[in-house]
């Protein structure tokens, strides 16, 4: 089993000021490493209007030599919401970034609202030419298409570059189940590859087996290469009544030699909810990264990051 040492909550969005669009939530942390700071992207929300949220993405810069020290918070969202009828009209969440020469490339899930189900999502692409402060969509539509076996709720992208190829790990919904009159999506971890980051070939299979139930929802497929194999940390939950401790998100683990065939071994994950405190009910949206010889994990705690994200440090190796 891996040994993750929890370093506590790092960022609490409710403490920010003068940013009405950044009132609550800092979801799905994703890092971009600079010489003297670590930029952590996350997604946040202004207060709900008429019971409905929109989500923006932003960043917080942490001191590279002390990740508990906040240097600055984004002054504005990194990406505008989409126009009328576009896939990202009501939200941009989550976001994943990659430095490609002098540009930062982002993939993100855009949110639209529907009539019979509360929402749909699709994955868009955006590019930054100012070191990741602001991004511009490459076009009005999404970059990953819906397809016969990935009919809706494409989300949770994580962009990686391995063996001269782009890999996008993401989730795809396969059904909506009814929980107390509210449709809730079931989604599984999927992937696609690309030589240019724009045209993608889908693997078209569920990468991770289910453990708790057939309708288990899986998210945040965060892939990291170390020690000759690929490691995936992700989160999973029950399909119904999942907004509390018993059936809420936990972090799972799988490993692979080829990025296509994955062996799930949650018993090795080495991180769980705490007995008390900010992450005592659920942990989710892991993001693993290496910094100056150490391996860290950002993750969300209770209420899926409503009050911030925290950090853990790996003791030993993957």
């Amino acid at each position, binding site marked *: 089993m891996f040994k993750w040492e929890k370093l506590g909550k790092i960022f609490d969005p409710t403490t920010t000021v003068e940013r009405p669009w950044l009132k609550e939530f800092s979801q799905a942390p994703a890092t971009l490493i600079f010489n003297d700071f670590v930029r952590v992207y996350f997604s946040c929300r202004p207060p709900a209007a008429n019971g409905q949220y929109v989500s923006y993405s932003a960043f917080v810069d942490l001191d590279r030599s002390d990740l508990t020290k906040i240097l600055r918070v984004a002054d504005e969202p990194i990406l505008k919401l*989409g*126009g*009328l*009828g*576009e*896939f990202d*009209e*009501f939200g941009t969440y989550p976001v994943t970034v990659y430095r490609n020469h002098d540009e930062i490339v982002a993939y993100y899930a855009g949110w*639209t*609202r*529907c*009539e*019979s*189900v509360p929402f*749909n999502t*699709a994955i868009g*692409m955006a590019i930054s030419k100012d070191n990741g402060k602001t991004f511009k969509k*490459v*076009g*009005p*539509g*999404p*970059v990953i*298409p*819906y*397809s*016969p*076996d*990935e*009919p*809706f*709720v494409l989300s949770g992208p994580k962009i990686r570059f391995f063996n001269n190829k782009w890999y996008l790990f993401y989730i795809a*919904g*396969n*059904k*909506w189940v009814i929980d107390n009159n509210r*449709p809730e*999506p079931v989604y599984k971890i999927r992937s696609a590859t690309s030589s240019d980051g*724009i045209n993608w070939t889908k693997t078209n299979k569920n990468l991770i087996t289910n453990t708790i139930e057939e309708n288990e929802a899986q998210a945040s497929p965060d892939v990291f290469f170390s020690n000759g194999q690929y490691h995936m940390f992700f989160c999973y939950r029950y399909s119904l009544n999942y907004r509390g401790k018993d059936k809420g998100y936990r972090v799972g683990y799988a490993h692979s030699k080829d990025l296509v065939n994955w062996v799930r071994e949650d018993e090795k994950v080495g991180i769980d909810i705490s007995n008390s405190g900010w992450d005592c009910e659920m942990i989710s949206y892991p993001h693993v990264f290496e910094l100056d010889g150490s391996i860290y994990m950002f993750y969300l705690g209770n209420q899926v990051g409503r009050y911030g994200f925290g950090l853990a440090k790996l003791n030993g190796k993957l």
Partner: protein
Amino acid sequence: MKWKKLGKIFDPTEHKLPNNCVEYAQSPQVIVKDDFIRIYFSTRKIDPKNGKFLSHVSFVDVDKTFKNIIKTADETVIPLGKLGAFDEHGIFPINLLEHNDEIFAYTCGWNRRSSVSVDTGIGFARSFDGGLTFEKLGDGPILGPSINEPFLVGDAFVKKYNNIFHMWYMFGTKWQIYGDNTAPDRTYKIGHATSNDGINWCKEDGIQAVPDKLNPDESMALPTVVEHDSQYHMLFCYRESSDFRSVSSRGYRIGYAFSDDLIHWTRDDNKVGIDVSFDGWDSEMLCYPHLFKCDGKVYLLYNGNEFGRFGFGLAVLED
């Protein structure tokens, strides 16, 4: 081109159709059989949950004089999609292509949105019983939004020429609110895609196959192509993007383009050879054209007033 109108040939209100559909027979499209023509169309039922429409595919078989109806569909031709799917709230239209012993179907699935009324995607299905029923390939579309086609991908028309499948289809470019207290209206254009197997497609992504005539807010839909006299001919319908329901002159008319290579199209609506009638069922609007050949003649099926609420008619090309 010179079309001779043969009049309205089918009125959905005169027949009992599956799924409690009562009005509309939109976008007629055919399979030509040995001794009859099967004409598919989209008809509507009222969604009991909210009083809105749900479009269902049905068909009518007519003999080759087009004067005698043999039968109408007596069961569901293709079911609507499941909760949250792209075709949950309707399939309209459906395009058919005979392929070996199967019939390929390209559907336009409808799903309702909250800030705008609807989005669409192109689905794929197959029939193994001669077109009575169809089985879908998965729950999702084979073509949907992409970087430069953000929404409203639909209205596929597929033909195989020189061993390549060609698809002309509609893609949305804009939703806009034109007046106070009016709902957003959409603008869409015609695109082109190619495929080796009819299932996996390469879109041109945001490139208009046919240029605008009216203005940038012109909407163009339902492309249909026929090869005739060593040239490819495309009909489609077009209209203004606002006030098109109530003002006849802003509503749908049929446009025309021709091509020698299936790629470059020259628009020349002056040659379309068909317009609204002085009175009768097609006096205010012409829409949803479908070209096909039968026994050496070229025919045009189309809808008239009220987007086909009371049926569709036929015209034949006169040489």
